[in-house]
């Protein structure tokens, strides 16, 4: 049962990543693309962890942790880059 659940969850997360890919390509603004990348990183963490369950080893967790870190840092860096100058108001 668990093996089936992992497969189903992997499939659902893959579909989710396809949706983020759609938003990444369509845009229309740069900010939408940053949001798509951020969501993609979050979904990728789940995919990595599920792959870990499937392999029966927790050797992949460092990878998941690193992607979580890099996703957050790159989102903040990109948005800061867009916001050089004054904010509104």
């Amino acid at each position, binding site marked *: *049962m668990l093996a089936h*659940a992992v497969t189903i969850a992997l499939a659902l997360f893959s579909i*989710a990543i396809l949706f983020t890919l759609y938003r990444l390509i369509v845009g229309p603004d740069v*900010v939408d693309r940053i*949001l798509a990348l951020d969501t993609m990183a*979050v979904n990728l963490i789940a995919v990595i962890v599920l792959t870990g369950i499937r392999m029966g080893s927790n050797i992949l967790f460092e990878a998941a942790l690193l992607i979580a870190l890099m996703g957050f840092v790159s989102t903040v860096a990109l*948005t800061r880059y867009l916001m050089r100058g004054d904010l509104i108001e």
Partner: protein
Amino acid sequence: MMILEAVISLFLVVGALIALIGTIGLARLPDIYTRLHGPAKASTLGVGATLFGSFLYFTFFTEGVSMQEALITAFLFVTAPVSANMIAKAALHRRVKCSENTQNKPFD
């Protein structure tokens, strides 16, 4: 053991479903500000639920306690609002258009 397996499976699949709904929101809502809502919370909660399932699995089916999932989950829940806020700020700064029926627009 059967019940535990069922609980883990439930967490994995329900988490995946919530995350999928969040990204559907990302794909089909009309403007950047509404799109923010899906990924910022639904995806975080969904991935959190999946990670909790994985935590249960590695704690009860392998030796030792697996704390790294808890760390990743905590990290996601702390950072998700921050990145959502940063993205909203960037969108406001670039004056990305909001959808027509938005009330009380901060600019036109």
